[in-house]
């Protein structure tokens, strides 16, 4: 059977089992796909796989509005890691979520330049190994002056639509520093110093799981994940932390008061 048919069966079985109130997945919609909560008894024949979407963010919204809901979700590797980071930051209660693990195909991996295209438990699909991001390798060959020129050119195209921030599953702060005029001047484009992008990059450290949703959302095609991938590598080298790897590893940059833990 095709991967899509297997996934539809898996979603239908979970819905029929009575364990969940609904399953979050993608369905065919203009122009290609849109998130949809399949309810028990729903027809799953319009369930689709691609293009992927920021499903962890949608799940967060659903659970915030319905804290008692028990939800299923089709999770790719990046989406499982996204959920794990959200859970560690008290945004999502994983006890309410049943995951159907979906391994990405080689084509999907290549589109995302993904180093980790499979979840910890694969229910549907076959595991393919991750690849190193060629754009990151190219970037590392640049001199400091070339890097300045490269990012200056990229950030000059930014129209400050905030799509990267809005699409990011890990951007869940109720008050966002990027909307504070003290740091990021509103309604000003092409500012000499790329404060918006550097602050956002800094805030992704030890949270970004490399789902590429920011880059996919960007109308100016700025290769944002190159910067975030470099920082993710730095976080692993300096802090030993890989976002989304395990729900048991504490986020290294979260400050706790002594004795605050446990409780």
């Amino acid at each position, binding site marked *: 059977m095709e991967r899509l048919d297997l996934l539809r069966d898996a979603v239908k079985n979970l819905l029929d089992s009575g364990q969940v109130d609904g399953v979050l997945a993608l369905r065919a919609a203009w122009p290609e796909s849109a998130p949809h909560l399949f309810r028990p008894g729903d027809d799953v024949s319009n369930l689709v796989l691609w293009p992927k979407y920021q499903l962890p963010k949608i799940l967060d919204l659903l659970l915030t509005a319905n804290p008692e809901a028990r939800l299923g979700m089709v999770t790719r590797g990046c989406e499982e890691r996204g959920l794990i980071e959200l859970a560690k930051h008290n945004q999502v209660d994983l006890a309410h979520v049943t995951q159907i693990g979906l391994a990405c195909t080689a084509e999907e991996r290549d589109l995302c330049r993904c180093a980790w295209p499979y979840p910890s438990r694969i229910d549907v699909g076959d595991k393919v190994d991750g690849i190193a991001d060629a754009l990151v390798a190219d*970037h590392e060959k*640049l*001199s*400091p*002056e*070339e*890097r*300045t*020129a*490269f*990012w*200056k*050119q990229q950030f*000059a195209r930014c129209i400050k639509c905030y799509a990267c921030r809005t699409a990011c599953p890990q951007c869940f702060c109720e008050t966002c520093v990027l909307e504070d005029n003290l740091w990021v001047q509103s309604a000003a484009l092409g500012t*000499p*110093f*790329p404060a918006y992008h*550097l602050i956002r*990059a*800094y805030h992704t*450290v030890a949270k970004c799981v490399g789902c590429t949703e920011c880059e996919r959302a960007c109308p100016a095609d700025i290769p944002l994940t190159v*910067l975030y991938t*470099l*920082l993710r590598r*730095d*976080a692993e080298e*300096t802090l030993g932390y890989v976002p989304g790897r395990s729900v048991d590893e504490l986020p290294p940059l979260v400050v706790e008061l002594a004795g605050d833990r446990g409780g």
Partner: protein
Amino acid sequence: MLRLLLSHVGINPDRVKLDWVSSSEANRFAEVVRTFTEQVRALGPLETRRTA
């Protein structure tokens, strides 16, 4: 981590310094600020306004 971020976008990380000085160490505070000011001045202005 901030220094690493700056190096990725081609800004010399020596333009940033984090140090700890007690409120009772006035001389040390002056020394740290003086040294760092000289260090940044030696690097010159950050030419962010130059057109690409």
